């Protein structure tokens, strides 16, 4: 979907409870009370929409990019946390609770009885801890599966606590229509978890794959090829990625995002270029052919399909080659009339993957630590190299697709923008969001 439509949808859903409360909730109370309540209402609906922004919904992330989706999720989570933390501080009530003589029908006040507030208090304590754990997840170095389970379960518990709190203690959410609205929204949010952890695995189970080959490409990089079992395979665009589960139950959380390195034209097999980096990828070489596999996807918007630029520049650093070689292969296999130039940077010659395939005139290999007999480019993919390899006309009119280390992507992207490449002609996608 287009970004503007997504933003409008986001606002419509997040604001629905606030608008509903205003139109159904009777006369407003003093300003601070209303502000406190409004903050709580907004924070809750923002938290619920976070479930949809989890990056698991193609309808959301494939139009704008997974990195943008996740960044939006992260920033809005922080905003929701701030609103939620301010929410109870602005109420002026009797901390000891109990009925107030001037408000026997409780039209003017929220309850301050602890039993009615206990779910809210629990959520108030859990939410900051939950967000802090998410922000610091890299430093805390969880296994990816542990992190996913914890984040999903934590979100579920917080959503249910806040729902209980809103209905039991909220002035507006206690009204039947709004109670049902909150239940429906929370149900939809919880439903996304059920969808991701139950429905999607069931669908995957019906479309199994099997590892056909595991090949060592370089000392630290492997190629894993999988083949569909009893179905036609995956429809995707070159450059997209999938969540890959190798050898585990479809219901386990053992799945990881990998770019597809093979071309759709070479279907039905899929191959992935995987570098030994984390706890999972270090053991990739031990995976035996025949191992069952499942995948979810395709995801990502790093695709040149349907683009009208006369030429395509593929700028890859290290394992960032994976999606770009997929695009490169697709262009070659389909005799695409567009010009293409693949620039592939590494540190040493041993790190160059698919070397025997990358020999054409349209491939530029770059090494920062070249051996004495090196004939290709030396250095890193930086501004000087870009200026040498691409003419101003190419910089003005070509599509640039960049994947590699952050420092390379930032440098190249900023340089292209400075040289006049319009931002819609620069495609990037990052797998490290924080």
């Amino acid at each position: 979907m287009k970004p503007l439509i997504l933003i409008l949808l986001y606002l419509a859903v997040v604001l629905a409870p606030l608008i509903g409360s205003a139109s159904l909730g009777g006369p407003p109370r003093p300003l601070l009370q209303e502000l406190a309540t409004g903050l709580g209402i907004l924070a809750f609906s923002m938290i619920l929409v976070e479930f949809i922004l989890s990056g698991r919904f193609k309808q959301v992330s494939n139009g704008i990019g997974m990195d943008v989706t996740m960044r939006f999720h992260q920033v809005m989570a922080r905003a929701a946390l701030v609103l939620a933390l301010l929410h109870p501080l602005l109420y002026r009530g009797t901390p000891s609770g109990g009925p107030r003589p001037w408000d026997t029908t409780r039209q003017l006040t929220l309850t301050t009885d602890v039993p009615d507030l206990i779910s809210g208090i629990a959520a108030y304590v859990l939410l900051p801890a939950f967000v802090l754990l998410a922000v610091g997840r890299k430093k805390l170095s969880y296994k990816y599966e542990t992190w996913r389970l914890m984040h999903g379960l934590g979100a579920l518990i917080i959503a249910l606590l806040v729902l209980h709190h809103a209905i039991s203690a909220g002035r507006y959410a206690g009204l039947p229509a709004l109670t049902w609205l909150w239940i429906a929204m929370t149900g939809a949010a919880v439903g996304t978890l059920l969808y991701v952890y139950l429905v999607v695995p069931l669908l995957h189970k019906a479309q199994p794959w099997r590892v056909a080959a595991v090949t060592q490409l370089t000392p630290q990089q492997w190629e894993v090829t999988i083949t569909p079992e009893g179905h036609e395979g995956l429809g995707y665009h070159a450059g997209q990625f999938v969540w890959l589960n190798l050898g585990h139950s479809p219901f386990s959380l053992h799945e990881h995002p990998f770019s597809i390195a093979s071309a759709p034209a070479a279907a039905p097999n899929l191959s992935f270029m995987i570098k030994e980096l984390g706890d999972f990828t270090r053991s990739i070489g031990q995976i035996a052919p025949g191992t069952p596999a499942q995948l979810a996807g395709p995801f990502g918007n790093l695709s040149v399909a349907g683009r009208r630029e006369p030429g395509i520049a593929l700028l890859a650093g290290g394992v960032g080659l994976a999606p770009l070689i997929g695009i490169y292969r697709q262009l070659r296999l389909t005799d695409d009339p567009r010009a293409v130039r693949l620039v592939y940077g590494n540190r040493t010659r041993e790190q160059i993957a698919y070397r025997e395939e990358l020999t054409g005139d349209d491939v530029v290999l770059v090494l920062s630590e070249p051996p004495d007999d090196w004939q290709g480019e030396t250095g890193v993919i930086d501004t000087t190299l870009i200026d040498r390899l691409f003419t101003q006309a190419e910089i003005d009119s070509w599509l640039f697709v960049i994947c590699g280390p952050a420092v390379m992507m930032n440098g190249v992207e900023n340089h292209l923008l400075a040289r006049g490449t319009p931002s819609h002609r620069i495609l990037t996608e990052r797998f490290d969001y924080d």
Partner: protein
Amino acid sequence: MTNLLRRTNRHRRVMAAVWGVNAALALALLWFVLR
């Protein structure tokens, strides 16, 4: 924590969307309080 989207063109666009959304939410909250 290094945010890898920071200082890039994409990041600027995400943040423009975030600020736009937050501004709209703030306006809605103001309307709710002052209605």
